[in-house]
């Protein structure tokens, strides 16, 4: 119970946000931040716990988004079912890419480059294939009914993405506590030693890839229901792959709350920089970049771990902090 208490507390706290404010700006910000936390969490399971740094998580996000959109628009399938198929589609793409890369023993930078290549191939295919709407993209018809997975109120969308984030957080915690999780971390730390202890390295990586892809795809499905539009540059764009890895790295790679903290901080930072920069184009991105560099340079283990350390050093008397 102790393991899950903090997750329940954080989720309940976040669930109260729409009760406190009705500002669409705030809610929109929070929806986007939570969606980023969601695909960041997906990346975190494979990259943070498993040590397999993917540069192509857009492959899963985009597949989730496209499957959800195309099934509704071209085949008239109910949005909720399309959402489910979108998640399954992302998981399938994860299984295929995982089987191909891990079977051939790709590690480190080779793995990163090949995942990037997969995402790019999908982007190019999606930008020319008639089924995806090619260059024009796919627009979901406005139909503000719950049965169509569309809501008048942003608060409902907010609670839905929060529910997805909650499931991802709990999944991560369960993995952390399980045999699979111990093996996954062992693979990250030292593959040869893991093998010697009976860990089927390829199977563990593949499992992590599928879970990772599933969570990331869910974010893609959510994206398309929220914005009702997708094209290849959005769905399979490199920005998704980069945010997916940046978010947990800033927040704390291989921690349960890392992606959530990272998403809130980076998105908040982006908004603040934009507001402060005013008319000067690009200045917000410069400020954003500088802060990212500083965080990575001085807090290489991420914000959530740094926060934990700070908290402990305040609570415990001097000298005891850091021990035990």
């Amino acid at each position: 119970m102790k393991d899950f208490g903090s997750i329940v507390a954080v989720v309940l706290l976040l669930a109260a946000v729409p009760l406190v404010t009705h500002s669409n700006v705030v809610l929109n910000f929070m929806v986007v931040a939570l969606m980023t936390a969601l695909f960041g969490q997906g990346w975190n399971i494979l990259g943070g716990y498993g040590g397999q740094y993917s540069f192509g998580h857009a492959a899963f996000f985009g597949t989730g988004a496209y499957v959800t959109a195309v099934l509704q628009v071209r085949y008239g399938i109910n949005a909720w079912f399309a959402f489910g198929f979108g998640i399954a589609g992302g998981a399938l793409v994860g299984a295929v890419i995982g089987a191909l890369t891990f079977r051939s023993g790709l590690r480190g930078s080779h793995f990163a480059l090949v995942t990037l290549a997969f995402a790019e191939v999908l982007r190019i295919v999606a930008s020319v294939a008639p089924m995806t709407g090619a260059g024009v993209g796919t627009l979901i018809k406005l139909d503000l009914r719950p049965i169509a997975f569309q809501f008048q109120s942003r608060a409902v969308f907010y609670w839905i993405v929060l529910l997805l984030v909650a499931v991802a957080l709990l999944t991560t915690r369960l993995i952390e506590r399980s045999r699979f999780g111990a093996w996954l971390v062992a693979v990250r730390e030292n593959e040869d030693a893991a093998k010697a202890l009976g860990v089927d390295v390829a199977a563990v990586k593949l499992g992590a890839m599928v879970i990772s892809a599933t969570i990331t795809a869910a974010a893609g499905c959510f994206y398309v229901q929220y914005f009702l539009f997708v094209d290849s540059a959005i769905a399979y764009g490199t920005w998704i792959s980069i945010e997916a890895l940046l978010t947990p790295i800033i927040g704390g790679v291989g921690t349960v709350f890392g992606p959530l903290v990272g998403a809130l901080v980076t998105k908040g930072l982006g908004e603040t920089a934009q507001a402060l920069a005013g008319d000067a184009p690009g200045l917000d991105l410069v400020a954003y970049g500088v802060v990212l560099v500083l965080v990575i340079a001085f807090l290489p283990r991420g914000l959530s771990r740094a926060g934990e350390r700070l908290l402990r050093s305040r609570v415990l008397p001097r000298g005891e902090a850091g021990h035990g």
Partner: protein
Amino acid sequence: MADVPLVAVDNVSRRFGGLLAIKGVSFAAPAGRITALIGPNGAGKTTLFAIIAGFLKPSAGRVRYCGEDVTGEPPHRLARRGIARTFQIVQPFAGLSVRDNILVGAFLRHRSRAAAHAAAESVAHEVGLAGVVDRPADTLTVAGRKRLELARALATEPKLLLLDEVLAGLNPSEIRDIVPMIRGLCDRGISILMIEHVMQAVMRLSEHVFVLAEGSIIAEGTPAQVAADTKVIEAYLGHGAASKLGATHA
């Protein structure tokens, strides 16, 4: 079953490019004993271990375990069958605590976290790491890391334990501590095949020694027999060394 050796290497060769590192080696280690594999540097001992544990495939020959042909099986499957190895160059999961390191091994036989925890705890106690289980593995001393290698391997509850120079780099008092521990493992039914350079320990622990030099077995027997063997002395000290030693003794 008593006649079937626990592990038997049958005419195994291994080639690395133009180098034949192992040349048709055959030997067997019986169950319930400590068997030692010694030999000068570069003899191919670690390569042979890697072949037995599944990390390398032999270019020719077979490996049998409990009478079954296990040649070329991947290491994780051999670990499930009961073969555990330690690494000559220690390979801790550096970012994890000592407990979590051992836990990875314990999960092989215990699915639930509680059971694996209990098993890991008892192994930590057995190898004398009980006091440091919460420390990060990379803060251990050399002796501590060697113990951790041993602990992780033991946590998989092996039938056959392959020890690759667990005593190398330890001081005499640390060796004195670990030798009885290895003896104790054998006493509780774990068969051991060890590569070792510390001859004093080989003498005290094993009943049967194989000597590997330049990829071939050149001698076998009790520790005393191989230590007196002319070919063994020459393999270590160079051609003609045995007769010179004999001359000074005379």
